[in-house]
């Protein structure tokens, strides 16, 4: 995964948090997914990517950060056991992934409907044959991360992004 692809996800995360949540975010230094995270992942939204690019995007939070972020997003403090909680996390990762894929000029990429995992200290295992990068972020609600694993699909080999 090149620096340009990573920048697409940083930009899309900025865009979603600042436009829909009025919550400025500060990105940290991207690193390989095998790096030990600086926080416990309790809530993750997952989206698959298909088409010219194969992979997935994972938006992960500690529970306290997720509650704060969703309060900024929806205007209410949502119970993590409520279906509305996972719905809101799913919509966030959907918008981040959608805004990022729109920046992949010259590549046709489709995204799946989101899935949400809730459980203390879980780990989402990315597909093994894809380059995986974790981008840490910080906002007033706390730390969170966007993990991206992607590789070009076989039929897209040789396709050059415009």
């Amino acid at each position, binding site marked *: 995964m090149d620096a340009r692809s990573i920048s697409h996800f940083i930009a899309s995360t900025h865009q979603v948090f600042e436009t829909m949540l009025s919550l400025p975010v500060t990105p940290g230094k991207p690193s390989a997914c095998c790096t030990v995270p600086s926080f416990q992942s309790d809530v993750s939204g997952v989206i698959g990517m298909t088409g010219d690019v194969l992979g997935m995007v994972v938006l992960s939070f500690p529970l306290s950060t997720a509650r704060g972020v969703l309060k900024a997003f929806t205007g209410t403090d949502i119970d993590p056991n409520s279906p509305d909680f996972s719905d809101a996390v799913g919509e966030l990762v959907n918008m981040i992934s959608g805004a990022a894929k*729109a920046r992949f000029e010259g590549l046709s990429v489709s995204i799946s409907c989101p899935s949400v995992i809730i459980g203390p200290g879980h780990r989402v295992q990315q597909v093994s044959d894809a380059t995986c990068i974790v981008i840490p972020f910080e906002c007033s609600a706390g730390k969170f991360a966007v993990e991206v694993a992607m590789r070009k699909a076989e039929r897209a080999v040789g396709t050059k992004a415009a």
Partner: protein
Amino acid sequence: MKVMLIDDSKTMRNIQRNILAQAGHTDIEEACDGQDALSKVSAFAPELLLVDWNMPNMDGLSFVKAYRAAGGKSSIIMVTTEAEKTRVIEAIRAGVNNYLVKPFAPDLLLTRIQETLARAKAA
């Protein structure tokens, strides 16, 4: 004005509902996918439909095609994360009247609605 919100995310429907309420539009029906919308749209008879693209069971583009094929004439705004030009063109060809990419600022949704209704009135 009667407005139908078609999105699989309840969160997004609530956000749109709140924005519309602030602008005085409270006669709202919701649907969670294209199939659900098709089952409700005739009885509710909305003047405006806000339609997401990516939804389970029946996506927004298929809904728009089915609605127009059945003679539905109301204005449709596609509200979606699908931002590529080819997607916008595909949606317009299917019968969408206006297009708004998520994420969006509340003012932008209201601007798109005003634009769309003004065009429909002028037509």
